[in-house]
């Protein structure tokens, strides 16, 4: 598997990332970040949900520990993907190669890489080029338009990333009863954290997300039917 082949396989992911990160760029700027701060976040993190939560914590001037724990919980799935990808790697994936390529493990890059029989350093790196470019370019364009477009337009665009989140979750809920139940639990808890004045005043939004998500997922582990194959994340 060559760098070239990987590069080509990354095109579709790169185009998809361009649009998602465009919404992120708009959302980041409307949360009070400058365009280059938004860009810096995208270049160093390469993850959607984690970055949206991160911007929320930044705009609330949240604590460093809160930031670390929220990223840990939200991005925990990458650990699982890393372990599973690691079983498909060939000899070219040396330790320095792993240190470099682990930065590129996202849901989509993992998905495409795992569809190969073996994953080498050159293929994995080639596969990641266009997604990284798409992700940073989209953020840049989104942040820039966030500054240039009138307020009524940017406010309408900032909601787009949440629309995408709904588009990720709902189809899976239709297929799995367990996942639909725990998503409802997570939403109900999140609504409680937002509207009960005592909780809203004392629990920051980052921690609230962590508590809701972990509790709901744990409930899912206990209520899941014996024969249900868990969905891929």
């Amino acid at each position, binding site marked *: 598997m060559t760098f070239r082949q990987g590069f080509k396989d990354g095109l579709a992911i790169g185009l*998809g990332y361009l*649009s*998602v990160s465009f919404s992120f760029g708009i959302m980041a700027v409307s949360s009070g*970040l*400058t365009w280059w*701060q938004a860009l810096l976040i995208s270049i*160093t*993190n390469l993850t959607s*949900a*984690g970055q949206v939560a991160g911007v*929320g914590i930044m705009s609330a001037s949240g604590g*460093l520990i809160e*930031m*670390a724990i929220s*990223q840990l919980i939200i*991005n*925990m799935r*990458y*650990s*699982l993907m*890393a*372990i599973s990808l690691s*079983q498909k790697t060939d000899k070219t994936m040396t330790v320095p190669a*792993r240190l470099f*390529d682990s*930065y590129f493990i996202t849901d989509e890059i993992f998905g495409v890489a795992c569809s190969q029989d073996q994953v080498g350093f050159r293929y994995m790196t080639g596969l990641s080029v266009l997604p990284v470019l798409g992700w940073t370019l989209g953020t840049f364009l989104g942040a820039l338009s966030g500054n240039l477009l009138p307020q009524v337009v940017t406010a*309408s*665009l900032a*909601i*787009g990333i*949440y*629309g995408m*989140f*709904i*588009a*990720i*979750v*709902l*189809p899976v809920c*239709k297929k799995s009863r*367990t996942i639909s139940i*725990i*998503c*409802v*639990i*997570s*939403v109900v*808890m*999140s609504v409680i954290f937002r509207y009960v004045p005592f909780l809203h005043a004392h629990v920051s939004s980052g921690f609230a997300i962590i508590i*809701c*998500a*972990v509790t*709901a*997922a*744990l409930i899912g*582990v206990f209520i*899941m039917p014996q024969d249900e194959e*868990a*969905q891929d*994340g």
Partner: protein
Amino acid sequence: MDNKVFLPLLLVMAVTTYLIRMIPFTVFRRKIRSRRVKAFFDYIPYTVLSAMTFPAILYSTDSVISAAAGTVTAIILAYRGKSLLTVAIGTCVATFLVSLLLLLLL
């Protein structure tokens, strides 16, 4: 945003996200066998996105009314199995139209 607030948080965010990927990819190489542990990891992305979206989506625009219009549109399109991009665009368009309507009426 003030860099005194931004930079330390960015550093923690980036380092945490990197370590979560790097440590398992470099150190652990065996498979997770426990069905329950595996299920927990599979569920987390969806419960995270759910908690992040609601009720925050309602406050992501200038008015709760336009945001609600976008939310309903997103739910309908997503339920019909439309692609991520289609849902996102539909959400934005519905929100924008209702925002314009509100501007004209109020």
